[in-house]
């Protein structure tokens, strides 16, 4: 490794008040490589990227570009130094045209007017290179998510960055779109562009990146060539403890109620004719890529979405709930995946949020007792170890504590059916562990648990069996020894069962 690194980060530190986001972060990125930065939430990788993009100023430490020390006063300064940042959340204007989005704030002007022709001329080469073949004068809202991501990438590429930072660029993409994006990234690498790639999805990191830096608690733990690392080794580096430790063992059944949820030929939205049963005392996993129909399935079971056909029998002997209110009254609960939008009243107190279901959805006395609500809040705060006073507003809490509120408001009514849509999204490892043991308790208490997740390890670590949904079809089930990341990932990405025990390389490995 005699190559001079294009980017060198030394001893970077950043504190937010008393909390250390970056402790002693080091990073060396060689020109022309794709370099991954991985780590759990809170490991400091987003703060690191923000420092590099000029959004956040570090308290200490040095950033060197091509051997020269730089310090960015803002995002524009970083941009001028050739650093381009593609954000995780799309920042496009959906109602405006592709061209308008590409040239936001630096529209080429001819004779005092914004010139579309000029824009087209300047961007056509790049768009061809990115393989983005769309009507550039049409509004962005007509494009697929994958194409939008490419527009976002193109916008950054127009500034001709030397170093491209990609923060979970494919979080909203399906496997085909991801492949396409990766193809583009490989071509960019061949063209000499250096990339920093931040992602949670390790399989993809392994398929596209040359080197990996593992971060934990604001430090870099290990940096190595991808070829010398394995996924378990990376996971171990990220969480710093054995993975089995993360998943609490099954608890003994504390309830002897035997109930069952039967779904036959259920269709609706993207989901087509799904049939399965789930029994009390087991945790049934639901795996599927974004847009596969898993969310629709949970929404239908919760009464938020109408079904097109099929039959469902809940433990109470009835069919699908007519509405979410009906579901709540029949003790069916849903923990939505978008916590901030669908799960919380952010400006309201913990106490208020915890009363959502018991007061808001259920019938009973027309009066609202502040004292009962306070008792309820105290009970859940104690039981779930929520770190906050009952009167603290929900938006003052960390992601993990917020998620506990969403779960806690349902626990108040003792649900029989738990529909959990990616309940650990965006929470730190410690909170994840607590949520896992909560899920174990739900199941041990006689609840029927359907658990969907975007993170395979947690499905495998927690579930008794995993149902895999591919493009709206429930294509199969993995149980026991079949529940390996390979088998499930293969099913999720191809819709086919893995033939035989001899496993082919990961689906991303060979595709180019």
């Amino acid at each position, binding site marked *: 490794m005699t190559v001079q690194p294009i980017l060198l980060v030394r001893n970077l530190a950043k504190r937010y008040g008393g*909390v250390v986001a970056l402790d002693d972060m080091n990073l060396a990125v060689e020109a022309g490589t794709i370099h991954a930065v991985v780590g759990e939430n809170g490991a400091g990788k987003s703060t690191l990227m923000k420092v590099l993009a000029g959004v956040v100023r570090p308290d200490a430490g040095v950033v060197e570009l091509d051997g020269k020390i730089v310090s960015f006063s803002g995002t524009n300064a970083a941009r001028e130094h050739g650093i381009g940042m593609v954000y995780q959340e799309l920042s496009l204007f959906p109602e405006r045209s592709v061209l308008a989005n590409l040239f936001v704030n630096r529209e080429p002007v001819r004779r005092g007017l914004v010139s579309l022709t000029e824009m087209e001329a300047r961007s056509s080469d790049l768009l061809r290179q990115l393989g983005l073949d769309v009507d550039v004068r049409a509004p962005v809202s007509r494009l697929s998510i994958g194409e939008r991501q490419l527009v976002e990438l193109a916008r950054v590429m127009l500034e001709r960055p030397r170093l491209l930072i990609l923060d979970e660029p494919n979080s909203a993409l399906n496997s085909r779109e991801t492949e396409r994006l990766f193809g583009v990234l490989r071509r960019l690498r061949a063209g000499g562009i250096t990339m920093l790639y931040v992602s949670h999805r390790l399989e993809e990191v392994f398929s596209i990146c040359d080197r990996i830096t593992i971060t934990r608690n604001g430090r870099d733990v290990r940096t190595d060539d991808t070829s010398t690392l394995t996924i378990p080794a990376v996971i171990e580096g990220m969480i710093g403890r054995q993975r089995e430790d993360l998943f609490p063992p099954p608890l003994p059944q504390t309830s002897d109620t035997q109930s069952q949820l039967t779904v036959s030929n259920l269709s609706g939205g993207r989901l087509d004719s799904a049939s399965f049963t789930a029994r009390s005392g087991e945790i049934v996993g639901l795996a599927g890529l974004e847009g596969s129909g898993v969310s629709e399935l949970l929404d239908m079971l919760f009464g*938020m979405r109408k079904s097109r056909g099929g039959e469902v029998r809940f433990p109470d002997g009835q069919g699908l709930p007519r509405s979410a209110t009906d579901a709540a009254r029949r003790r069916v609960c849903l923990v939505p995946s978008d916590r901030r939008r*669908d799960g919380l*009243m952010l*400006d309201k107190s913990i106490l208020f949020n915890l009363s959502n279901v018991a007061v*808001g959805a259920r019938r009973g*006395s027309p009066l*609202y007792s502040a004292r009962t609500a306070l008792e309820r809040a105290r009970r859940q705060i104690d039981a779930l170890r929520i770190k906050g006073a009952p009167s*603290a507003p929900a*938006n003052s809490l960390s992601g993990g504590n917020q998620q506990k509120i969403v779960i806690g408001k349902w626990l108040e009514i003792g649900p029989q059916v738990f529909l959990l849509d990616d309940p650990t999204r965006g929470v730190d490892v410690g909170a994840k562990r607590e949520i896992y043991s909560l899920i174990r308790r739900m199941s041990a208490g006689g609840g029927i648990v359907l658990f969907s997740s975007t993170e395979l390890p947690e499905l495998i670590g927690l579930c008794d069996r995993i149902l895999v949904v591919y493009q709206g079809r429930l294509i199969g089930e993995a149980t026991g020894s079949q529940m390996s990341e390979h088998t499930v990932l293969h099913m999720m990405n191809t819709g086919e069962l893995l033939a035989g025990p001899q496993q082919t390389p990961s689906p991303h490995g060979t595709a180019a």
Partner: protein
Amino acid sequence: MTGIDNDQLQPATAPTEAKRGWRMPEEIGVIVALVAMMVVIGIARPRFLNPINLFSLLGNTTFLGMLAVGMVFLLAIREIDLSVGWMFNFSAVFAALLMVAGIDPWLAAFAGVLFGAGLGFLNGIIAITLRLPAIIVTLGTYSMFQGLSLVVNKGRAIVPADQSSSFFSVISQKLFGLVPVAALVFIALAIVMHLVLHRTRFGYRVQAVGSNPEAAEHAGIPTAWVKLQTLVLMGAICGLSGVMYVGFRGAIDPNEGGDFVLVVIAAVIIGGTPLSGGHGTIIGAVVGMMIIQVISSGLIFFGIDATWSTFVTGAVIVLAVSLDRLIKFQRARRAERSRETLRR
């Protein structure tokens, strides 16, 4: 990471808990503003503080104030009802016509309240079946109610000829020759509605839906039903205000109520209820309405041309919301800072 969280959070939560016990009521700002204005006017023109004047001021606040009380629920659920003035007018016209037709005024007044609730129901049912914001629906019904009211009153004031019924004497009476009964009804309504907002399941749901409709839906709160209830309540309060107006004045003008809606919304906002929903204060709305009344009557006391009162009212609204913004902005910044410390 979790270890850090623990250390960080424990001390931070303790003060919040302790603070809750003796926290100042949020309405303290507007109350202080109202008292200060009255003191200033009172020092310059002592006649202003004469109890007779103050109570007649309260009496004048009644009809618009009642609408403001109902409007708090609308803003709390993140909606606005533009048709309140004409629901008020139409219900009053309806009740007055029944009285003219010889029906017992008490019965007619009761029918007027129900009629108002019916108008609110119409607003509500359109809004929830078409999933439209109430502001759009009531933009239409505003003119519909105005037009229908005009059709039935034929552009003339409705004056019930026989005003010997106890209905008229009770409503327009002054207790101890001082306190208008209408004002007492208004205060009673405000107290009841304050309790409804903070101490009932319905009030809880209104705030929940207003705070985050999506999350309310996902928590199983029957959002459409709550919205309908709120609009019906608003209609019923308009009806009550309308029939009391008939009892108080003995007549209803064809245009009375046409300019109510903006004053009502202004009072609610001056009182501290945000447009962003999720939260409302009845006490604030009542005080807000009183502030508006004190301004217009204070101007008269200073001998300033009454035509100025509209301008001053507007200026006070702008001032009130600017102050509110400023306070919120600072609070948000403080919250942001403490959050930054807690996270990561």
